[in-house]
């Protein structure tokens, strides 16, 4: 479903009749109507390019003065105090760690489960079930993120807090699982799990699309050589869909990195100056949730600039992740054609 993932594997492949759409220039007549309409279409395209460039340029323009005024290193500091415009001290290290930690946990869960669900839908499910099953998983994408947020905080976290306490008690000797003293269970780990649920439909939708395209000759060939169903999936379906799964994971990662309101609601914020830990049982703030938590207080340009700088880093981060996803997809297209 391109509406879930925003990307189509079918892009730039020939149409259903195995031919490319009729060439642009040959068919125009050069009359006024054609020139106007073609111009409007081209204009819309250029408008989109302008829009994205404007987003980047604007964020940069507003963020740079604040970064220049920053009294500590923007990239390596953990401080964040922006109330005093003459003594701005803000750095993104902690935000970066929390953002990456929650997204990584989300991916570690969402990718295997999403791929398994996609395999179920395309390979295992009875024909009558596969379409409704796909629609059901897509419904997860229809739940607004704020609903994930309040459900996560009020229903999901209380249920799983005992499990979390157990993990803390048994694995606490390992830095990643040490007790960071967060009560109520609103930790990085819990947010990661909720994010996994939120991005699951993205992983599933795209993986499903590529698995369904596995050439029948490959699958039947494997089966004819005596492979079991699982062996057939391992030697035929998974290698064929590998690039698709990687790009699905990247797109989902992009979504997880930028998720705002669910993270803001669930994750406990830390008091300024609290000790650094590597623990996934800690609280914290991601780029997006730091911005959202302070959205009510954007009053002076210097202060707003600090948050815009955080937004800029997030923009760059998602830009890179998405660009990698596209490159993988492009390569795969070249490979298929």
């Amino acid at each position, binding site marked *: 479903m*391109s*509406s879930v993932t*925003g*990307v189509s594997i*079918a*892009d730039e492949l020939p*149409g259903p009749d195995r031919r490319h*759409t*009729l060439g642009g*220039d040959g068919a*125009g*007549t050069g009359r006024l109507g*054609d020139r106007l*309409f*073609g111009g409007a*279409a*081209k204009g*819309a*395209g250029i*408008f*989109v390019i302008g*829009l*994205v460039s404007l*987003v980047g340029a*604007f*964020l940069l323009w507003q963020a740079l003065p604040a970064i220049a005024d920053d009294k500590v290193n923007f990239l390596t500091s953990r401080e964040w105090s922006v109330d005093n415009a003459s003594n701005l001290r803000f750095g993104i290290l902690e935000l970066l760690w929390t953002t990456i930690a929650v997204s990584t946990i989300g991916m570690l869960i969402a990718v295997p489960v999403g791929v*398994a*669900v996609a395999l179920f839908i395309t*390979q*295992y499910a009875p024909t009558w079930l596969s379409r409704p099953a796909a629609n059901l*998983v897509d*419904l*997860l994408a229809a*739940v*607004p*993120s*704020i*609903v994930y947020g*309040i*459900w996560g905080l009020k229903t999901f976290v209380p249920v799983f807090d005992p499990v979390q306490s157990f993990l803390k008690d048994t694995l606490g000797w390992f830095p990643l699982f040490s007790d960071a003293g967060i009560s109520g269970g609103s930790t990085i780990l819990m947010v990661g799990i909720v994010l996994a649920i939120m991005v699951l439909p993205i992983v*599933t939708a795209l993986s499903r699309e590529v698995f369904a395209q596995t050439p029948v000759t490959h699958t039947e060939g494997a089966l004819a050589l005596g492979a079991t169903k699982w062996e057939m999936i391992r030697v035929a379906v998974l290698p064929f869909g590998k690039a698709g799964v990687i790009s699905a994971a990247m797109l989902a990662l992009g*979504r997880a990195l*930028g*998720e*705002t*309101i669910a993270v803001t609601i669930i994750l406990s914020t830390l008091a300024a100056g609290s000790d650094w830990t590597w623990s996934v049982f800690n609280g914290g703030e991601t780029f*997006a949730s730091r*911005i*959202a938590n302070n*959205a*009510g207080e*954007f009053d002076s340009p210097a202060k*707003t600039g600090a948050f*815009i700088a955080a937004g800029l880093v*997030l923009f760059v981060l*998602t*830009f890179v992740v*998405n*660009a990698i996803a*596209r490159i993988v997809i492009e390569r795969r297209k070249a490979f298929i054609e």
Partner: protein
Amino acid sequence: MWGAFLLALVPLLWILWTVVSKGGHLLLDSQWWTNSQKGITARREGGGAIHAIQGTLIQGLTTAVISVPIGVMTAIYLVEYGRGRLAKAVSFMVDILTGVPSIVAGLFIYALWVTTFGFQRVGFAVCLALVLLMVPVVVRSTEEMLKLVPNELREAAYALGVPKWKTIVKVVLPTAFSGIITGVLLGLARVMGETAPLLILGPYSKSIATDLFSGLMPTLPTMINQDRTESLQPAVDRVWAAALTLILLILLLNLAGRVIARLGSVKK
């Protein structure tokens, strides 16, 4: 594999069950659909969500009115006209736009609307941020639908001497029409559930507001956000009821989109 599928269904059913069981009873009360929250404190029961429902619908429709022409024209450019580097660049930018986090879209509009132009935070600014999120969805789905239109139809029109723009408007677009509507509805479903840009650009208010250009405009997501930290029961109930209303609205759009897609898909 069955296990993974059932595991994926657990959260879906769990969320739906939580929201329906905690907020469902308020929706059965007719004042939920006719009253606003004006003058109602967290302690008091009663009041409705009509102010927030209206706000969400008004902002959604305005966003669609701006995004659809841009999105559809961009898709037409990509499928019918675009060749070479410019088309590649447009396609890449649409991909990037798809990945822009909603909070960044909100920040950008804040930087433009409030910091640079010095305007107030109003409903229209929210719409502009939502346009950024809706355009790529419309472009991608329209593009896919236009590609499904058989070339024979275009060739037949050209053979009759119909100019290219008329071919697109009178032949290609009508053929792909239902698919385009589906894409628009799915895009609308995505932006209506967005909260992050509203946190920055659209503060909540308790009374009905229909003016996009002045004053605060309440929406369902901000209504949920407003009371989510409340512990008094009437307010908690209203949070879940607003969540259920929002889910129903979005499910309805999704279902409508899928039904239209099923009924009117391009015949091969």
